[in-house]
């Protein structure tokens, strides 16, 4: 009975000891306290979080605390600093507090979700949660706001694109394009023509891409794939160029001869060629002539209904010189025009005066000579 009592007493006392110990332990935990304001922070991948943590000493003695950060994924970096020093242990004055800073760098390649980090100082611990707002990647981004442009075949298309290096390292991208034959694609990072560009990790560069269509391009939509690539990663972007039809007309002569001769008051038939040099159909071509006053010009046919791209048509023009035109050079300009385009050809017309007065003059001289001969006959051989 006594033994049982002693045993129970021993049990009781040991229990009391444990309780006392436990209570002592509880008192000890409260000696050091950790505090920060933002305990759950949401950031995108590739950025870093800075915490300012207060370490507080509630005891009346100087406390030395070992510091530790737990639960940080191995690919992340962190640093624990007091002032400018990396630290592993701090000392805190009685009833005092110190501030340490924790910087956690989140890499680009990280999954979306919550990550728990525990900061420990001595016996105290501070749970922190870093929320990664987006799915991270190890990628290059090649983007543009406006991937589609429209213009005629003679215009330049200038696309403003952004190339973003989302990999962890500095990259040298070579820029290549796959344009149709005859097209010209120029990459201009930093406003200078280049074939490659170097980008720091996690930074963006503006690349202007200038596209010149080939000279004889037909109307339509053209896709120009461009690519920025390194041996590790690449990014594609598809640009779209819409070529509208061009309206171009050319008026010329069969041999390119643009001079002619004409007698004043006389007429001259000439051939002109109307050519559609554009890429769109020309409708209702009008022919007109700018000529000296008193002159006439008649076209046969007087106009052309439809002329497809690349086609040509011969037009006869009958030019009638004015009766009062003086000898020498005149200029006559013929114009073929549609509302969208026009072309003209200037003729140098050398005017000759009609020979009729010349013959009358010769007649006058012959009459005079005839009189002389008559006189010779009449008086001569007396």
């Amino acid at each position, binding site marked *: 009975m006594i033994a049982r009592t002693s045993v129970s007493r021993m049990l009781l006392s040991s229990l009391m000891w444990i309780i006392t110990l436990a209570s002592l332990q509880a008192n000890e935990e409260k000696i050091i306290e950790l505090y920060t304001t933002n305990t759950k922070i949401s950031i995108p991948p590739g950025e870093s979080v800075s915490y300012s943590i207060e370490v507080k000493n509630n005891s009346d003695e100087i406390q030395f605390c070992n510091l530790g950060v737990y639960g940080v994924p191995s690919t992340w970096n962190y640093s624990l600093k007091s002032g400018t020093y990396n630290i592993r242990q701090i000392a805190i004055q009685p009833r005092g507090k110190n501030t340490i800073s924790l910087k956690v760098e989140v890499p680009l390649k990280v999954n979306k979700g919550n990550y728990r980090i525990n900061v420990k100082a001595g016996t105290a611990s501070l749970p922190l949660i870093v929320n990664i707002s987006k799915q991270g990647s190890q990628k290059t981004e090649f983007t543009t706001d406006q991937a589609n442009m429209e213009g005629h075949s003679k215009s330049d298309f200038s696309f403003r694109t952004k190339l973003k290096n989302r990999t962890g390292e500095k990259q040298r991208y070579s820029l290549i394009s796959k344009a149709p034959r005859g097209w010209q694609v120029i990459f201009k990072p930093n406003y200078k023509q280049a074939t490659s560009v170097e980008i720091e990790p996690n930074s963006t560069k503006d690349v202007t891409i200038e596209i010149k269509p080939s000279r004889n391009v037909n109307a339509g939509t053209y896709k120009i794939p461009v690519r920025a690539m390194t041996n590790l990663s690449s990014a594609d972007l598809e640009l779209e160029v819409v070529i509208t039809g061009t309206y171009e007309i050319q008026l010329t002569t069969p041999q390119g001869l643009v001079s002619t001769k004409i007698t004043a008051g006389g007429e001259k038939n000439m051939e002109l060629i109307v050519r559609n040099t554009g890429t769109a159909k020309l409708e209702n071509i009008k022919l007109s002539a*700018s*000529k*000296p*006053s*008193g*002159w006439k010009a008649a076209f046969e046919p007087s106009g052309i209904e439809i002329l497809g791209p690349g086609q040509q048509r011969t037009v006869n023009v009958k030019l009638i010189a*004015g009766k*009062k*035109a*003086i*000898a*020498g*050079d*005149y*200029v*006559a300009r013929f114009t073929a025009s549609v509302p969208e385009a026009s072309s003209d050809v200037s003729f*140098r017309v*050398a005017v*000759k*005066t009609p*020979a009729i*007065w*010349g013959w009358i*003059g*010769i007649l*006058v*001289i012959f009459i*005079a*000579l005839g*009189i*002389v001969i008559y*006189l*010779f006959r009449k*008086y*001569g*051989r*007396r």
Partner: protein
Amino acid sequence: MAEELKRRKAVPFFNRMFWGKNKDTINPFWVIVNKEIADHIRSWRFVVLITIIALTCFGSMYTAITSIGEALKSGKADDVFIFLKVFTVSDGTLPSYFIFISFLGPLLGIGLGFDVINSEQNRGTLTRVLAQPIPRDYLINAKFLAALIVISVLFLVLSLLVIGAGLIAIGIPPTPEEFIRIFLFTIAAIIYVAFWLNLSIVFSIRFQQPATSALSGIASWLFFTIFYSMIVNVVFNIFIPEGKKLSIAGEQLKLAIQRVAPNQLFSDITTSFLSPSVRSLGPLTMQQMQGAIPGHLPVDQSFTLVWSQIVGLVALSTLCFIVSYVLFMKKEIK
């Protein structure tokens, strides 16, 4: 007979003109012509005339050559014809070559023609010549032809001299077109002087005294050169109200009246031949000028432009010759 025919065939046609019926004798017409030419060339009068003309021509050529560089800077359509500038350019101190020719040419014609008949008549040699067995018109024809030959040779030589001197001075040879133009100008000058020659022959037949005929010739020359255009202007000014301008038709009428004067005809001809950029000699309407490009006319067009003037000058010359011929044939020679 066969021998004779053979001999005749062997002699070219041209020679038959020169030779008489026998091969050994010259045709009497050419005898007179030769004699007249010799007389002209040996006369002091001819030496004086030729000295005046040669001096003035060389003077004008000198000014042309010294100022040709300045003239070439103008950048006009005529610049293609550098060589023609030798004939037309002047620095203002002396008239240019063609103006001298048009001014002194008549003097030469009058000088050679004013006493052809009346001086012989006064000396009494005319009857002696006409007593020879030759047709009467041989004399007048030969006298005219002799003077014309002298004038032609003189002008051709002068033109060639100017060409040669110009060639030395500016070092650029004339183009064929320029040469043709200069040649045509020379021919026109000969025709012009032939007119004055014929006119003075008319006077020499009509007037007994050489002084009278010379004065008549010079008077008519002065009249046409100086007074005629003045008179025309005055008459037109009477009919035109103050401050108003002539209409195109009026200007054309005025020009037509002025073209009665032979010197106006000749100046038209020289302008057209020596300035290829001249496209019209009369007033032009705006309609005619519209669309015209500055340029030069080809020779044939320049020729066509002044063809009526050439015809007029030839007709005037021929008319004077006809008058002198008729007068001479009907003249009583004592």
